[in-house]
């Protein structure tokens, strides 16, 4: 074995020098004309930092670590959403829905029981179902009003009652909103468990839609326990409810697992979904009270008129009646003592 030829060693050394001299200008740039390090050589400007990331973050010496964000210009964007976008969206969606329902009432009027009342009653919702519905409904109305107050109160209520009274109203409204949320969660969970089976999509739903959903008087829209419209409300309530619950609890427990951007997104999701939710529920309240004769009693006493059930939930009524007949028949046969 021989050593490396000498010329190879020379080439390696020459290459090493070459790379060093190539690197020299980099060092030279970081030195000022007097040979001292240039203090601005590697400073990144504010605008450059903001181009790289939406926030400028650093290290702080105080215990409140969320303060390590030096600057988040997105705050101004969120301000714009909250003060411009949300105000318009809320006003258009909610007032638009009220206007549309008003027009529907003027044009179509109340949907009557066309054959009139039969006087016979059928149980539609048992007491536990009604309790679950009203738990959700009352908490929703309370949450809706106290929530709308946070966005629209200063435009609507503050000029009327003055800043001091409005401030204490808003303070109580905030606490009510935060704590009543628990009732809404329980109510929604009960509703979902109780009614999810009857709200699964069926073939009859397509027929219901084809027949104009009961809004066209000459046609009959067939339906099981819940018609396609009610099913849409159910699934919307489930989806929107889950979204407002998750985003709402992120807001109630601020900065647990979220940063400033997370809090802003949670608020945007919460507000947009809630506004849509309010509009849909206003329509739900309309059709359940003013819009349709014989509908409200289903949730009030739990019983509906036989003719109402025939017109709006024919398939469900058939099931109920045949079950009743079966029960009656088996009641006769099992009159003898059970074994």
């Amino acid at each position, binding site marked *: 074995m021989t050593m490396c030829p000498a010329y190879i060693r020379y080439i390696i050394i020459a290459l090493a020098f070459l790379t060093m001299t190539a690197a020299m200008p980099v060092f030279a740039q970081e030195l000022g004309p007097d040979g001292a390090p*240039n*203090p*601005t*050589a*590697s*400073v*990144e*400007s*504010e*605008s450059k*930092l903001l181009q790289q990331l939406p926030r*400028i*973050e*650093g*290290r*702080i*010496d*105080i*215990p*409140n670590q*969320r*303060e*390590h*964000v*030096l*600057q*988040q*210009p*997105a*705050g*101004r964007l*969120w*301000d714009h959403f*909250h*003060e411009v976008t949300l105000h318009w969206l809320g006003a258009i969606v909610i007032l638009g829905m009220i206007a549309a329902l008003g027009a529907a009432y003027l044009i179509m009027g109340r949907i009557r029981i066309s054959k009139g009342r039969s006087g016979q009653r059928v149980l539609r919702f048992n007491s536990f179902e009604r309790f679950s519905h009203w738990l959700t409904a009352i908490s929703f109305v309370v949450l809706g009003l106290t929530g709308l*107050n*946070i*966005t629209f*109160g*200063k435009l609507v209520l*503050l000029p009327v009652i003055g*800043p*001091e009274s*409005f*401030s204490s109203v*808003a*303070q109580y409204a*905030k*606490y009510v*909103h*935060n*704590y009543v949320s628990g009732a809404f969660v329980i109510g929604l969970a009960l509703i979902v468990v109780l009614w999810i089976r009857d709200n699964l999509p069926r073939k009859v739903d397509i027929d219901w839609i084809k027949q104009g959903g009961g809004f066209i008087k000459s046609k009959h829209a067939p339906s099981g326990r819940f018609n396609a419209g009610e099913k849409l409300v159910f699934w919307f309530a489930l989806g929107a409810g889950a979204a407002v619950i998750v985003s709402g609890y992120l807001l*109630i*427990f*601020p900065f647990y697992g979220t940063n*400033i951007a997370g*809090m*802003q997104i949670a*608020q945007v999701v919460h507000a947009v979904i809630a506004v849509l939710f309010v509009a849909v529920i206003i329509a739900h309240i309309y059709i359940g009270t003013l819009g349709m004769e014989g509908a409200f009693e289903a949730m009030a006493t739990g019983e509906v008129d036989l003719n109402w059930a025939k017109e709006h939930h024919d398939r469900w009524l058939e099931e109920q009646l045949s079950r009743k007949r079966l029960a009656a028949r088996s009641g006769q046969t099992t009159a003898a003592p059970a074994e």
Partner: protein
Amino acid sequence: MARVKFLCDADRCIECNACVTACKNEHEVPWGINRRRVVTINDGKPGERSVSMACMHCTDAPCAAVCPVSCFYTTADGVVLHSKDLCIGCGYCFYACPFGAPQYPKVGNFGSRGKMDKCTYCAGGPEADSTPAEYAKYGANRLAEGKLPICAEMCSTKSLLAGDGAIIAEIYKERVMKRGYGSGAWGWTTAYHEGIAV
């Protein structure tokens, strides 16, 4: 009076935190609240810079816009102040503030943050100037005494400047011209919709 502003010359800040301490002392700020803080960027790396940050007293202040009870107001000097009597502690001003200025006495689950506290530019609050009631809620009112904010007044390197926005911008420009560099007036574009061209 003119429009007052804050300017932190990050090329001068030595992260001594004297502004933070002076502020806490001047206003008897409760534990856990820091109206001013120093954030160090690129800590331990080449190009490290520290910036002293508090409320910038923004033009079109986002905190004031989003407040659900409209408890903010802007003085003739451009100082953004708020009323703790009206504040409901919802936390929205913190989400809107580009500079993390609003502070709350408590952690704040279920909306229990307490009344918001922030830098007042040493200008007190809505109560009568320099009264014990004003001091208890908002701290000293140095502006009413013709003094500037304590943080800037006692900055050892004169990194933090407070006063008439046009004058402090001019001072900063002169500095940059003389020394030949400057990393810019931090936060000015976001706060005042204008930077300082040098």
